């Protein structure tokens, strides 16, 4: 049986994590390092901060009704069992039904001041209207002109500052996302349709970097083709929105380069979960151009990651993937509470056409695959209703689960 002892997160303080990341060469100046130390001293350790799961889903058609509520129910269960409260910030396109997540990433006021293309027919894909100003955050075609690409930088800067980044941070983001190494302009690696999710993610990373909360886990969910570097969404009729330049494609390369801009936020991440098909092959290369495995990439990007989950083969639909997400998140909470064997067994391990893999960082620093024993006591099936005890009820209609969705104050 899992150990449900009380969570003790003081063993890995923010200050020790910052040191670990700095040793990898984040490029921080001595002034900013000093500022970090001062901020850490003022804000205390990780144990004092709100713990947050970032749940980024490219698939907005179903996740609000199954994966997200089940994961929230797992967080609720961990809290009720004395493992401490962890909240969630969901990131998505507007869900089918209209609920939007910008309010959680940007805050209600800022989100309300922005009209995206989903909600204003006068806008094109990748555009957002702030006041009377229309910003273009992604190209309209697969072959944008140099002038169009260069113009993206100015619009991204306005959007980044609008959602809370300083001018300096906005400059850093533009440097890694929208410039080549020679300084010439480029588009984001992610597609136009993912520009809103990308802006939400950056806003959340910026808040974590500034000490507002700690990111305990990052979930990346959506469709994924084997051997590609991006996850993608679908439109309401289950048509895949997978054009790499203009589609709803979120690229792992963008997630990677943002680590240099938000090193503290990335160093906070304990767990990474890929809830997507074929995420054992994500087309990432090391400095020598050699293919990296998914755990190698995850460790390179998130220096303090302890646990990781991905799919070899086909992941189930969101209704069934909900159980895998919930169980992984509950087991991650158990492990952080001191149960070092929490990842070693699971109720949900595989389907007919895919294996859910778990990986853990050992005392030697290497991330190795966990051999998972079957344990039906590790989670619940509950006649297909899981711990949320409902089928297909959106999370935002569940008052009890909404207590675990972090709202920006």
């Amino acid at each position, binding site marked *: 049986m899992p150990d449900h002892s009380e969570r003790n997160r003081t063993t890995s303080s923010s200050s020790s994590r910052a040191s670990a990341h700095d040793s990898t060469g984040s490029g921080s100046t001595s002034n900013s390092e000093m500022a970090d130390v001062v901020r850490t001293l003022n804000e205390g350790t990780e144990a004092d901060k709100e713990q947050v799961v970032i749940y980024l889903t490219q698939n907005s058609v179903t996740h609000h009704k199954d994966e997200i509520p089940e994961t929230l129910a797992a967080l609720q269960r961990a809290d009720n069992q004395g493992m401490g409260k962890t909240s969630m910030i969901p990131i998505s396109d507007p869900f089918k039904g209209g609920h939007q997540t910008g309010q959680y990433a940007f805050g209600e006021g800022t989100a309300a001041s922005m009209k995206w293309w989903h909600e204003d027919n006068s806008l094109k894909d990748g555009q957002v209207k702030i006041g009377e100003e229309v910003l273009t955050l992604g190209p309209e075609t697969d072959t944008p002109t140099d002038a169009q690409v260069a113009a993206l930088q100015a619009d991204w800067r306005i959007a980044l500052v609008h959602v809370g980044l300083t001018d300096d941070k906005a400059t850093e983001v533009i440097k890694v996302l929208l410039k080549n190494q020679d300084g010439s302009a480029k588009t984001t690696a992610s597609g136009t349709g993912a520009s809103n999710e990308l802006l939400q993610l950056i806003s959340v990373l910026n808040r974590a970097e500034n000490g507002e909360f700690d990111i305990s886990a990052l979930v990346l969910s959506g469709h994924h083709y084997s051997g590609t570097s991006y996850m993608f969404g679908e439109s309401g009729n289950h048509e895949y929105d997978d054009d790499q330049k203009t589609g709803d494609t979120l690229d792992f390369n963008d997630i990677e380069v943002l680590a240099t801009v938000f090193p503290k936020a990335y160093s906070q991440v304990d767990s990474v979960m890929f809830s997507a098909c074929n995420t054992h092959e994500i087309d990432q290369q090391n400095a020598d151009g050699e293919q990296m495995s998914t755990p190698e990439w995850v460790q390179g990007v998130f220096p303090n990651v302890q646990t990781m989950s991905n799919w070899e083969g086909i992941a189930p639909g969101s209704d069934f993937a909900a159980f895998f997400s919930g169980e992984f998140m509950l087991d991650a909470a158990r492990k952080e509470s001191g149960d070092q064997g929490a990842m070693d067994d699971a109720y949900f391990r595989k*389907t007919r056409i895919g294996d859910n893999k778990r990986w853990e960082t050992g005392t030697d620093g290497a991330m190795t695959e966990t051999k998972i024993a079957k344990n039906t006591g590790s989670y619940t*099936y509950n006649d*297909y209703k899981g711990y949320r005890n409902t089928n*297909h009820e959106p999370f935002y209609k569940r008052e009890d689960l909404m207590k675990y969705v972090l709202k920006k104050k």
Partner: protein
Amino acid sequence: MSLTLLWVGMALAKPTGLDASIGGIPADLNTPLQSATLTVTLDVEMRPVDGISMSRARKVSTHFVLTPMQGDPVPVEASLVNSPACRFRVPLAGPWQPGSALTVSVVITGDSLPMALDVQLPPGAKPAGQSWRLPAPTGELILTLPACG
């Protein structure tokens, strides 16, 4: 004279592996269509995998009865057996005439599903008893199995 066409659909699984396409109205059907009925039968099996009951489709079949402007009704059938897919797409495009309509029925046989089958019809479809009525058919009928892995 009635004409019977037997058209066996091939699974066109997309790279993520969830989807299969089945049946549809043959491209070489030149007769303008006035109306039609479509019955999709999905025979479900709940089979344990790693101790968890998961759904799969033992057989999915489509049966169109197409009513041309002239001549006798034309039945068109297709089926998939033991498909690993979790989502089944039935193309609805055809030589439809203005004012034409398609009546769609979905029949589930076999084991009980833990949650309702997700039936997605193109915009404009309206319930008609236990069926749906779709004017000016186009697009696809999409059936998604729950608890399918």
